[in-house]
């Protein structure tokens, strides 16, 4: 059931917007700047638009349709109240540069959210402007670098475990650091002794994900922090998996100096097909003075002020500066705060407990059919890790993923973390019901058994999705990244190509 592209649907003659006003004259001095050729963008009327995007949307899988067990991506339910609140005109229809007295409520949102984040993490400050998780990592690393430079300590190396998200080494490199691996134990955790051995005056710090991407809590986190601090470095914690521990343990208690929080993971703001995210970074006392501008403070009269470049010179002289225009992802802040207020401190604790319970339930229900490399070492946190060991010859993790599509599910995260061969990382989150998990487990089991039995039909899965397997090599070899007018205009598509539902 195909949906044409807007370029195949619309014409340049049509338009889905009416203008009451007639456009007036163009200023003569603008003459030399005017467009020579009209813009070749098709216009669709509203009925055509609504139908195009409604139909397109139906080719997507989404959390609203079923479990979306992407490990480390934390696809949980997105409450509808959040969406309603974010659209209140007092939040959605205010300009970032309005006089500060006219946006006190917006500043209060930032203040309240900051308080929640600091208390939940046990940290002393938070930088609210980072636009997404990776941007938050950058913020944390820049703060570390600024802090080290402030003490005249130019270190060059950041240590990352091999199991880290790719953003960790990329961020460190983007910030000018050289990246080295931290070795792992057989149990899937940081090798504390090996780490200690590597620490030295060239090491600016470590980036550790906790719970890590094997779904395990880094038991030695506190010891790691102490060792890094002792060696003059600082500790960045990747908070992508904070979901598993919110309300149960505070990273600040474990010696972390900086940690970003993906509001779209732990705090339920929608992923939206790939963004926008929001990545506030909590900071320890050591790093707080280096936080970016702008930030929100109350003045002596209790009015909220946005502290921008100039004022920051007095209030936060060591700030490493601005990371982005304006002051953060307000639309995500309102959603996240709404979520936090809804759950409360008690509910958030329950979130962590249920997410861990759900993951362990999956781990224990499937370890007889799927290899669980760290299963024997104890409970997992929010996600269950399996490997492709034991599948029939020629069958891979990819086949299991694609087979799961035919069962009506979005696959788990595959081939990540890199430290496990053919990794499958299953994160149910706390918003799945037991009934739903039982079904998911049954499907995973069925597909795993087919892969172990060497069922050939699995290798061409999916069969029941809007598309069969797509040729990614072709896409990369001969990139077609924009639509071009075909040589001869396409005729009327035949009905079977178009379809309705």
């Amino acid at each position, binding site marked *: 059931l195909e949906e044409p592209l807007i370029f195949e649907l619309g014409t340049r003659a049509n338009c889905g917007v009416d203008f009451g006003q007639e456009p007036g004259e163009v200023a003569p001095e603008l003459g030399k700047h005017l467009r020579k050729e009209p813009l070749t963008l098709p216009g669709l009327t509203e009925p055509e638009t609504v139908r195009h995007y409604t139909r397109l949307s139906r080719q997507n899988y989404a959390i609203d349709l079923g479990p979306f067990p992407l490990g480390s991506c934390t696809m949980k339910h997105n409450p509808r109240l959040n969406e309603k609140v974010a659209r209140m005109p007092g939040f959605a229809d205010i300009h970032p540069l309005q006089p500060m007295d006219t946006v006190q409520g917006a500043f209060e949102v930032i203040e309240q959210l900051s308080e929640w984040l600091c208390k939940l993490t046990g940290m002393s400050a938070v930088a609210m402007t980072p636009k997404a998780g990776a941007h938050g990592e950058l913020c944390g690393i820049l703060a570390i670098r600024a802090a080290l430079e402030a003490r005249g300590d130019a270190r060059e190396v950041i240590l990352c475990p091999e199991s880290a998200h790719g953003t960790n080494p990329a961020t460190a*490199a983007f910030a000018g650091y050289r990246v080295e691996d931290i070795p792992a134990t057989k149990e899937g955790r940081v090798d504390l002794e090996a780490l200690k051995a590597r620490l030295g005056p060239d090491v600016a710090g470590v980036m550790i994900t906790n719970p890590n991407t094997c779904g395990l809590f880094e038991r030695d986190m506190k010891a790691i922090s102490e060792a890094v601090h002792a060696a003059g470095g600082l500790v960045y914690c990747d908070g992508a998996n904070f979901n598993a521990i919110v309300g149960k343990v505070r990273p600040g208690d474990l010696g972390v100096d900086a940690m970003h929080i993906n509001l779209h993971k732990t705090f339920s703001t929608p992923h939206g097909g790939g963004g926008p995210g929001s990545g506030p970074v909590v900071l320890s006392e050591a790093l707080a003075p280096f936080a970016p501008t702008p930030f929100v403070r109350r003045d002596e009269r209790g009015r909220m002020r946005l502290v921008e470049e100039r004022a920051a010179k007095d209030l936060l002289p060591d700030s490493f500066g601005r990371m982005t225009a304006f002051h953060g992802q307000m639309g*995500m802040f309102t959603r996240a705060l709404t979520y936090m207020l809804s759950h409360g401190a008690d509910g958030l604790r329950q979130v962590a407990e249920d997410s861990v319970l759900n993951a362990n339930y999956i781990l224990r229900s499937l370890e007889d059919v799927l290899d669980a490399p760290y299963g024997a070492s104890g409970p997992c946190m929010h996600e269950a890790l399996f490997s492709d060991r034991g599948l029939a010859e020629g069958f891979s993790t990819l086949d299991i993923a694609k087979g799961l599509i035919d069962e009506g599910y979005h696959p788990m995260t595959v081939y990540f973390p890199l430290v496990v061969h053919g990794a499958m990382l299953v994160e149910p989150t706390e918003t799945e019901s037991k009934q739903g998990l039982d079904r998911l487990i049954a499907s995973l089991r069925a597909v795993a058994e087919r892969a172990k039995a060497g069922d050939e039909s699995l290798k061409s899965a999916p069969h029941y999705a809007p598309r069969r397997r797509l040729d990614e090599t072709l896409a990369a070899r001969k990139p077609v990244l924009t639509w071009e007018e075909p040589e001869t205009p396409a005729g009327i598509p035949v009905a079977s190509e178009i379809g309705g539902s």
Partner: protein
Amino acid sequence: MRYLPLTDADRSAMLAAVGASDIDALFTDVPAEHLLDGPVEGLPMHASEMAVERHMARLAQKNTAAGDVPFFLGAGAYRHHIPASVDHLIQRGEFLTAYTPYQPEIAQGTLQMLFEFQTQVARLYGCAVANASMYDGSTACWEAIAMATRVKRRTRAVLSPGLHPHYVSTAKTMARFTGDEIVSGAPDLSGDCGEDALIAQIDEATACVVVQYPDILGRIPDLARVADAAHEKGALLIAVNTEPVALGLIESPGALGADIVVGEGQSIGVGLNFGGPYLGLFAVRDTKLVRQMPGRLCGETVDAEGKRGFVLTLSTREQHIRREKATSNICTNSGLCALAFSIHMSLLGGEGLGKLARINHSLARDAAAKLAALEGVELVNTGGFFNEFTLRLAGKDARDIALALAKRDILAGVSLGRLYPDVQALSDGLVVAVTETCTAEDIDALADALAEELR
């Protein structure tokens, strides 16, 4: 709790199934001394939807919504009318609650939309290829500079004084750590965009020249001239656009020789949102540069049955494959904002964008004429402008005037003192944006109130 489906009975059954005596038996990897024995202190407990909605509504009501007053703020974020169908469609659960389209077989909705979006942006910018969006205009601008230094293996970036000061600050922050050199300065309050001075700064070490078009004061620089000068020195021209509606009327940066075009897409479909989430646009004029681009790209391909389909592609540039050797650390894009942009742009089409642009321009001209006629007000933009212009308020501090007008429930514009607190010479400047959402009565109200405040 309304979002947590497990019942207590479920929890007991599941604990039994995993062989745990209680929930903390699953948290044994957390050292006991750090495991909290109850909810985090100092925070409220869970609340009903009604109570939370009331709390948030009270905060919202403390703000002055733009729609409730005459409103003339721009300076990088513009208020336009967004058709109701845009927000309706982006709230479809299948769009709103999907993840990055890593499994293309069940993500064609997002992928086809991104392919359409890329094409729309490329055409709007007069470029060959656009990516699937970035965080916002300011970060896209830095990514472009970083890309230029990478491509050119040079470390100097010359920024036009007309570039949004937040974009300048963002670039300076990053350059401090990467070791690149940023050349920048504050604008003059004149109708001349300062192309001569800018061109004079370009040398053989210059990786790129960055020019905002229209610029922070609403002036329209001669991009083609700067492009020629940059190319002559082997540098790239990066054009920055913060008001895409302008491109319905004035020439595309790509057509004028810009090599990389970046900008803020918020005007189309996204809304003000107090500054975020916004939509970074990023395009290159020449396909040869594609493999050096940051950010996601969606490409066309076929499936096993030969049907057209779309996938994320060229991901060997990206961090999740290439790790520390990636073209950027960026991971998330602004998918939902890109969708909103694409829907709004589909409704407009080239025809509608052109008409919208001309309406903006015409209203802005009316407003500028009316305001410049006031005693003590001078129009800076003698060389023309699109929908935004700068006024000099006869030596008064424009911050004070803007605040006084806000007290009268008129949001008059962005004072240059807010943007350049350190530049005394700019303190009487007020940047005024006029879009189709401004009525003639709004303009009259501003003119009357401004006249009184200046009296």
